[in-house]
C-alpha cells in the first residue's frame, strides 16, 4: 500500500520533471544570434544539436580565435564555441587571432575538430584552409577608415586569399567567392582597436571589417 503511494509520488514528480524538460526546450523559440562556428561544422542545426559544451575546442585552439558564446548570443548558444576574430592583443597573448585551419601547428588538420568528442566538429579529408567556409567578411562602410578616404590598407595586406580589392577611390571591397572567412582582415583592422571611429553621428560598435556567417 505504502509502496504504491510512494511510487505514485515518484511518478508524478517524474512526469512534472519531464514536462519541465519539454517546456525548457521551448527556449529554442527565443531569438538567436547567427554565429560563425569553428571549422568542421556540418550545419548550424547539426552543430547546436551535437555540441555538449565541453569547451575542449576553445582550450586547444592554437590561434586563440574560438571563444565561448555568451547569453547575449542566445540562450541555446550559451557556452557553445564561436569564432571571435576581434580579440585584442592583450587577450591573444601572442596568438594569431584568426583561423588558418592549423596549417602548420597541426599538419593542416583543424585542432578543434580533432579534439571534439561529440562529433559537433568533424575532421574530413577534403577540409583545408582553402576549402573551409567559416563565414564571409563584411565591411562597415560607415566607420571604415579607407571608406573615409584615409588611405588604410591593413585588411587587404592581411588577406591570404586576396579576396579584398580596392576600387578607384582606394576603398576596399570583398570578393565573397574568394573569402573563406579566416578572419585575418578582422584581426588586422584598427577600427575600435587602435583608434576610436565615429561617423555620421554613429560611433563604431564593431571593427570596420567583420566575418559574419554565410547568408547572414
Amino acid at each position, binding site marked *: 500500500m505504502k509502496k504504491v503511494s510512494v511510487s505514485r509520488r*515518484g511518478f508524478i514528480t517524474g512526469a512534472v520533471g519531464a514536462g*519541465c524538460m519539454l517546456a525548457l*526546450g521551448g527556449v529554442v523559440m527565443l531569438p538567436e544570434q547567427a554565429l560563425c562556428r569553428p571549422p568542421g561544422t556540418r550545419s548550424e542545426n547539426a552543430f547546436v544539436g551535437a555540441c555538449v*559544451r565541453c569547451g575542449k575546442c576553445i*582550450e586547444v585552439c592554437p590561434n586563440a580565435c574560438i571563444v565561448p558564446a555568451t*547569453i547575449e548570443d542566445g*540562450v*541555446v548558444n*550559451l557556452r557553445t564555441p564561436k569564432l571571435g576574430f576581434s580579440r585584442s592583443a592583450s587577450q591573444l597573448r601572442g596568438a594569431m587571432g584568426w583561423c588558418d585551419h592549423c596549417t602548420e601547428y597541426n599538419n593542416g588538420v583543424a585542432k578543434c575538430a580533432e579534439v571534439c568528442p561529440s562529433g559537433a566538429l568533424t575532421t574530413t579529408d577534403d577540409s583545408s584552409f582553402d576549402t573551409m567556409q567559416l563565414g564571409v567578411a563584411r565591411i562597415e562602410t560607415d566607420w571604415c577608415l579607407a571608406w573615409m578616404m584615409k588611405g588604410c590598407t591593413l585588411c587587404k595586406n592581411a588577406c591570404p586569399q586576396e579576396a579584398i580589392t580596392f576600387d578607384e577611390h582606394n576603398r576596399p571591397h570583398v570578393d565573397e567567392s574568394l573569402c573563406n572567412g579566416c578572419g585575418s582582415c578582422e584581426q588586422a583592422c584598427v577600427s575600435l582597436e587602435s583608434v576610436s571611429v565615429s561617423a555620421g553621428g554613429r560611433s563604431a560598435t564593431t571593427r570596420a571589417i567583420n566575418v559574419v556567417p554565410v547568408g547572414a
Partner: protein
Amino acid sequence: MKKMKASTLRALVMGVILVVVAIGYFTAVGIGNLSGFGFDVFAFLCPLGYLESLLASKIFVPRALISVIAVVLLIIVLGRVFCAWMCPMPFLQKIIPGLGKKSKKAKGAKDAAALSENAPAQAAPPAVGDDAAPAAAEASVAVASEATSVAPAAAEPTAQEIDAHIGGKPNRFKFDSRYGVLLGALGSAAIFGFPVFCLICPVGLTFAGVFLVMRLFAFGETTWAIIAVPLVLLLEVVFFRKWCSKICPLGAVISLISGANKTLRPTIDDGKCLDTSKGISCLRCAKSCPEHINIREPELSEVSLNNCTKCRECSDHCPTQAITFPFLPSRKGKGDAVEKE
C-alpha cells in the same frame, strides 16, 4: 593518525578536479570539463550529453560512441562514484543551506522520514496516507534522536513483515522520478534539436560559472551570463534539495548502468553490527545515506543498491565501524549486505 572524514575527502577530490580543469583551460592541452573530460583527442564523454546530442543532431558519430563506452566501462568497474566524488552538486548543497527550517530536530525528522520510506513496516499504522506519514515519522524520531546510540527496538520491522512486503534482489531496477526527467530530457532534445538538459545541468553550470569569472579577469570579457549562470545554479541548489535522488537525469543514466557494477559495495560485518550482533536497531547507516538506501536491509529498501554512490557516509556513521567497501565482494562473506538476499 585520525582517519579523514569521507566528506572532507570528497571535497578534496572535487577541488583537485576543478584545479586540473582550470589548469587545462589556460594551458591548451584539451582537458575540457566534465562534459567531455580527457586529454587531447581522448575524452570521457558525458553519457547523458551523448544521448541528448545523438537524439538532437540525429547524426551517429562512432568516435563519440567510443568515448561513451569508455565511461560506461568506468561506471561498471567503479559504480556510481561520479555522483558523490566528482559532481559538484552534493558539495554545493552541503555548503549552501536550503530555505527550510534548519533546526536539529527538523533535520532529524527529515532523516527519519526518508528512512520510513525505505523501511515500510514502521511503527506507523498501515492505514495512514502520505500526509500522515511524516508526522508519524517525526514522532518516532523525537524518541530516536533523544536516545543516543541505542534507538528503541519498536521501529524494527519483524522478519515476517519484511517477507510479506517485498522480496527480491537489492539491486533490481526501481523506477523513480529521475527516469521521468530523463525521458523528458531526451524527448525534448529530440524535438527541439539541442541538448536541453545541458542548459541547466549543475555540473555544466558550475564549470561555466568558474570559467566566466576566469575569463572576466583574464580577458575582460563581460556578459550577463556571469550573473545568469550562477543564479540558475543557485536556484537549483536552494530550491531542489532532493536534486540528486529525485531529479537528476544524469544520475539516472549512471544508476542504470551501475546495475552491472559489483565492486566497492557497502558490506556490513555482521559480527560488529549492533543490529545483528546485539539485536539493537541502530540503522545509523540507513539514516546517514544521502541516497536513502537502507543497506542493512537492502531487500526492503525503497531505493535500489544501484544508486549507491560509494560516498562512505554510512561507514563514517557506523558506531562500530562495521561497514567497509571492499573492491570485490567477499566470497563467503561475513554477512555481506549484497549477497545476503
